């Protein structure tokens, strides 16, 4: 069954805001297509930290070669949804 991707998107935005200590933004106002590397200034170590929090939250393993590709909230949400769907 398809998981609710909009809920996932909001939750990922909240995790990013918490982990990266982003200010003046809420999950609702977080543009899911914002490039986290080019436009937010996220680096590989930040992405690795976020990947660990996502691993905890969703119980999925993220391939080490994959998380550098997870560069927008939407891409992360789709990745997680695909993982969760393939585990069903």
């Amino acid at each position, binding site marked *: 069954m398809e998981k609710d991707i909009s809920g996932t998107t909001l939750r990922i935005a909240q995790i990013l805001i918490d982990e990266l200590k982003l200010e003046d933004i809420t999950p609702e106002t977080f543009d899911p297509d914002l490039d986290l*590397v080019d436009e937010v200034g996220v680096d590989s*170590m930040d*992405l690795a930290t976020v990947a*660990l929090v996502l691993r*905890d939250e969703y119980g999925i*393993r993220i*391939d080490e070669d994959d998380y550098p590709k997870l560069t927008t909230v939407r891409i992360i949400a789709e990745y997680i949804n695909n993982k969760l769907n393939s585990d069903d």
Partner: protein
Amino acid sequence: MISPAIEQKEQKEYKFSEITADPAVRDRFKKVRKYFFLRESTYDMTNRCNVRCEGCYYFTGDKQFATENSDEDAWRVLLEGEKERGITFVVLAGAEPSLVPRLCEVCYDVIPLGAIATNGLQHIPRQIDYRIHISVWGNDHTSLKIRKAKDMLARQTANYHDDPRAIFVYTFNPVNIDEAREVTSLLAQNGQQITFNMFSAPLGYHGPLRHTPETLARTRKVMSELLRQYPETVVYSPYNIVAHTSEKGLHDLYSCSYPRMNTSTNVGLGRSFRQYRTDLNWDRQAACCVPDTDCADCRHYAAGSAVVTARMYRHAVNPATFKAWLDYVDTYLAVWVRGYEKGQNLCERFIEPPAKET
């Protein structure tokens, strides 16, 4: 006490939140995380050197033949461009940066975090407040044979006496393993710091300095002994010892993330790292911290500092492995960043490097 046996990976799967629930782990993670903003590139400052060492990586390959650009304005423009593209940490190296102090000062003016790799024979002015890495290849008898320079250690320690920028980098090779005791003892008496490097063969090098399984094992034993005996002097951890004295090199253990071995340009070193030659050009195909080193034999301390650190995700599998990784990163920051104080190692055991999760 460091256990001599490698500890096997635990079977239980831990959440990251469980691992960081330990206050010591959480505090150390917070401490090192403040430095995740560091983004490095390296710069060959001059193609001249005042010694000529056997197995020197700089004088291998074609980078040594690059034209030397000593124009201060050109360097300033380069560094300002580097800052603009997000570089926050510079490593000034090859061949001997102390011969061009004005260029080093220009770099410091623009990007104030960095390190200089030097042979220590010429003092670098104090106003250049980078970490200074002074290379040591044995006692003075061995240095005379390999580096063809007299009284190296005596001159190095005198030049950098009572200088908090300085850390001595002892490069272990098969012929100088036992001399590390003498060198470390001397530095301890002087109140100076030492960390360890491993000779990593340049491409095509088949001389006597290339490590073998036997010399790697002996090196591991001596490093362990010195870390235990001189905890105030030796800036290292048990996991550093494992990572740098395993029969497998760093690339085999951790998948090197420098552009030379990593085609991804999405994020991290593959995106931002450059290795500039003395003509201020760089080549992605050759870009790593020790170009012209044989990747299969690379156990270089600078490579490990980036490559092991980048593999946080795979180390967050159980408390012991994550503590070992934290010790490694804490060591790397203490070695490279001025003013960063290393904490006590959290994991005193030898931990097996974790394989990539799939």
